[in-house]
């Protein structure tokens, strides 16, 4: 009883004009839902489910207000939401947990919109939630999307506050669109000139690269085929000169040395070995620029073999290009590689590492290798050399019934044995893994290289797109006198893996993510072009916006000749530019005000034309006096000027302007050329004179 009383009193206390209107609640809910939608990709499933539930309750309650939970249930829901986040992330701080909690509480606040103040709070928090999403995704698409959400948000706030005379959503939208337009120059100025943080974001406790699908530093059956159905971007590369053929594009990533029977791992190489990595011979290097998505790993991808070390990187003894810091943000580097090379011979310790065998090598694997080793030449048996053995192994994969599939059968305790002799269905990792193992059995040092193969050429942007689906694994074997030699056993099985892109049938029924309909279909070509165009936009966005750094600012300052002012230059420049921009906007607005009236513009045009024939209007001259003066000076203009003024004067001073008047006035002016008329009348005068003569 007492409770009901207090609640009634509470609702009664709120004046009617402070209660939010239904459509405001509706649109706010919709906006929150729209802002949460792209976020759902990064949130834990149970958090997303909770958000959806609350949003649904809110929408239902809009139709049947009785469904709105009361104070106690709301409190319970708040605790449930908190518990939900804790259950999903075990924390409510940090990027993931914090964002989840923010989204949860924002959505819960939707259930408690008693006053317009609540609504305002929700909208402002929504702005924050939108910005938080940039920690997860900085793509151009999302930026556009969030831009639209911001526009909606400002529209609702404008309407809510009745700002700038906007009553109703439509005028409010106009107002906020105007605001957005006016904000653009300022945004540009601030973007270019606002001093950039040089400290990376992770020092602020924010993790800017998270949950990335990407290459890991180990390989076991299944983890590359996971990648291959993932169309996400790995990196973009732009070649300085001609792009090499697709089957030359082996993008070298982590090198794996150790095999435990199932899993390949890098294994820390013994310290102090063979530094730096040396190439004995090499072809001319090719140059290219890579813009790489964050991986949280230290390795960078470079074409086999990298020969240059960009700033902040080093080439490891096994020829990996490694960054000094994990790549947690977009990384741009220029690299040089040689496509044909001969590496130096490693020492015994390295050789031993590359020959280590796991415990589960089976006798039939040894027998297979022994079979290859023994070769019949001129009727007598002799031992084949290492390189011949490599060729025989490749021929084995090619001749025997090996299939290439993304959906290989499950392998048991000894994957290599089972694959080689029983299932014979696998993907590049199976081939590379078993091939490397067989080589080790044969006494040939081998190692696995992970990376990407090929990439799609984007002719719009002139660069190569490498996606996660281009992930690949291959083998390097150490051949006496030739150093480490790259061998791609997968290529032996199915050459189309290199020459063509994966076709749908290869991906299997389960993987419908990517498809290549073939060049014949015009629609397919068109779709592909559209996709590439979109990617070009995205790349441009990265290039010009996301990657705009403190260094770029410094370069800009130098170019403006303000390099010496490093310290304050940017700030001064920013203040200057901001004032100039604001001043410009002000001028435009003022000009708009004086010249806004279309009627005035027409009159000004008439006066300008008359001024052109030496009859300028005096500043203090009214239209009537001016017209009389003009008529007296140029009787030939009387009909047009008089006709114009006869329409203009009542329209202006009697305020009887109609669109029709304006039309007629502008028609009159269109054919009005006092200069031409004077020539005409002079000519006419002459004719009359000569007639008279």
């Amino acid at each position: 009883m007492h409770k009901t009383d207090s609640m009634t009193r509470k609702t009664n206390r709120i004046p009617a004009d402070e209660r939010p209107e239904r459509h405001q609640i509706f649109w706010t809910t919709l906006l929150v839902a729209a802002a949460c939608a792209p976020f759902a990709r990064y949130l834990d499933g149970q958090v997303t489910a909770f958000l959806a539930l609350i949003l649904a309750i809110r929408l239902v309650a809009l139709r049947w207000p009785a469904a709105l939970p009361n104070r106690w249930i709301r409190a319970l829901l708040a605790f449930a939401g908190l518990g939900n986040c804790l259950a999903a992330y075990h924390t409510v701080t940090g990027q993931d947990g914090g964002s989840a909690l923010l989204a949860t509480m924002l959505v819960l606040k939707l259930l408690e919109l008693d006053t317009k103040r609540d609504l305002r709070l929700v909208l402002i928090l929504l702005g924050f939630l939108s910005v938080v999403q940039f920690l997860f995704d900085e793509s151009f698409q999302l930026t556009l999307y969030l831009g639209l959400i911001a526009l909606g948000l400002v529209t609702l706030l404008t309407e809510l506050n009745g700002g700038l005379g906007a009553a109703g959503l439509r005028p409010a939208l106009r107002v906020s669109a105007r605001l957005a337009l006016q904000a653009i120059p300022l945004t540009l100025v601030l973007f270019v000139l606002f001093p950039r943080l040089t400290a990376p974001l992770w020092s602020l406790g924010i993790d800017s690269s998270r949950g990335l699908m990407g290459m890991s530093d180990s390989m076991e059956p299944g983890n590359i085929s996971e990648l291959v159905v993932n169309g996400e971007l790995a990196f973009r590369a732009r070649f300085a000169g001609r792009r090499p053929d697709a089957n030359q594009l082996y993008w070298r990533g982590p090198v794996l040395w150790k095999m435990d029977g199932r899993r390949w791992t890098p294994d820390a190489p013994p310290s102090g070995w063979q530094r730096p990595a040396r190439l004995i011979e090499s072809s001319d290097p090719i140059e290219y620029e890579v813009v790489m998505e964050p991986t949280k790993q230290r390795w960078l991808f470079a074409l086999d073999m990298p020969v240059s070390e960009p700033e902040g990187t080093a080439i490891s003894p096994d020829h990996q290009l490694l960054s000094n810091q994990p790549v947690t943000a977009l990384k741009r580097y220029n690299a040089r590689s040689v496509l044909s090379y001969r590496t130096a011979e490693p020492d015994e310790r390295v050789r031993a590492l590359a020959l280590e065998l796991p415990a589960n090598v089976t006798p039939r694997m040894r027998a297979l290798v022994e079979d290859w080793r023994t070769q019949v030449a001129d009727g007598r048996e002799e031992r084949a050399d290492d390189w011949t053995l490599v060729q025989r192994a490749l021929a084995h994969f090619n001749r025997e019934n090996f299939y290439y599939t993304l959906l290989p059968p499950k392998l048991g305790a000894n994957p290599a044995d089972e694959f080689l002799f029983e299932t014979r269905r696998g993907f590049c990792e199976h081939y590379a893994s078993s091939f490397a193992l067989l080589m080790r059995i044969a006494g040939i040092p081998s190692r696995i290289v992970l990376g990407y193969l090929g990439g799609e050429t984007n002719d719009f942007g002139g660069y190569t797109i490498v996606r996660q689906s281009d992930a690949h694994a291959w083998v390097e074997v150490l051949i006496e006198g030739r150093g480490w030699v790259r061998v791609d056993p997968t290529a032996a099985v199915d050459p189309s893996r290199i020459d063509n892109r994966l076709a749908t049938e290869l991906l299997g029924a389960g993987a419908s993510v990517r498809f290549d309909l073939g060049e014949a279909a015009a629609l397919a070509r068109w779709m592909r072009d559209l996709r590439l165009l979109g990617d070009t936009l995205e790349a441009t966005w990265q290039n010009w916006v996301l990657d705009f750094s403190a260094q770029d600012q410094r370069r800009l300052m130098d170019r403006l000749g303000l390099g010496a002012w490093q310290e304050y230059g940017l700030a001064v420049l920013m203040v200057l530019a901001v004032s100039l921009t604001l001043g410009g906007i002000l001028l435009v607005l003022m000009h708009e005000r004086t010249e806004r009236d279309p009627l005035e513009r027409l009159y000004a045009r008439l006066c300008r034309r008359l001024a052109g024939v030496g009859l300028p209007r005096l500043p203090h001259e009214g239209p009537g006096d001016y017209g009389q003066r003009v008529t007296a000076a140029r009787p030939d203009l009387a009909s047009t000027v008089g006709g114009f003024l006869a329409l203009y004067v009542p329209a202006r001073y009697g305020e009887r302007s109609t669109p029709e008047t304006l039309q007629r006035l502008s028609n009159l002016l269109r054919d009005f050329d006092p200069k031409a008329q004077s020539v005409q009348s002079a000519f006419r005068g002459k004719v009359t004179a000569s007639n008279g003569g």
Partner: protein
Amino acid sequence: MSLHPTSSPARPNLAESILLEAGAVILGKDRELRLALACLLARGHLLVEDLPGVGKTTLAHLLARLLGLDYSRIQFTSDLLPADVIGVSVYDRASESFRFHPGPIFSQLILADEINRATPKAQSALLEAMEERQVTVEGETRRLPEPFFVIATQNPLFQVGTFPLPESQLDRFLMRIHLGYPAAEQEKALLAGEDRREMVARQRPALTNAELIELQKSVIRIHAASPIIDYIHAILQFTRGSERFAYGLSPRAGLGLLHAAKSWALLAGRDYVMPEDVQAVLPAVAVHRLTGGEPGQRIGDDEVARFILTNVPV
């Protein structure tokens, strides 16, 4: 061709015909007549400043006749008392009470002749009545007739025995005009023509009181668009900022300017105000408020007005 397009105001021909008839009696003073009529239609009072004998009285008389107003004339002298203007209460023995005898001010049109010859006390009695349109005698408020219109004449100050009107009093006149000597042509016609007094006496009223009041009301309805308001405001601002004038124009002067311009527009047959209307009435409306009560220094009202106008863009 006419550059002042006519729309249909209340009764355009009426005003025109009045001016035509007046022009037949007072020759060559069309602009002054038009101003006087405009002043009356705007419910303002008129100050005519000139030498004796140029037709001030004739003008007042003529207007009274033409407009069908009853008319009285007060000759201001230095011994004139307020009671001579307003009236006195006299003891009536028959009714054993005081009875109010209304003074000459209880007329529709009053000619206050040589107003600057009277003492300030008598002047202010008239001027207060002009402003309030009512007089209070012995605690009783009496309304003046409607319409109520005062034409005051004033001699140039170099004549002896004059009390100049202070600025505050001058401000109560909507317009001040000068009649001046007639041009040669008109003067000869005047000399050759018949007696003006007889002509005036013969004049038939051109309209009834009700019609006059209706005309006055339609002046108020004349439309003044925002550019006109802006223009008038700019003029006021200019006079306040200019070093040439000791004081700028008052808000009342601004209102007067607007009303006079509206009235002028009505006479031109328009139902909206043009900048030219403001410019036409400016010399009569503004200058006497700016140069103060120094009619002796005749710079010329038009000249002062031109100075203002050329400095304020339309």
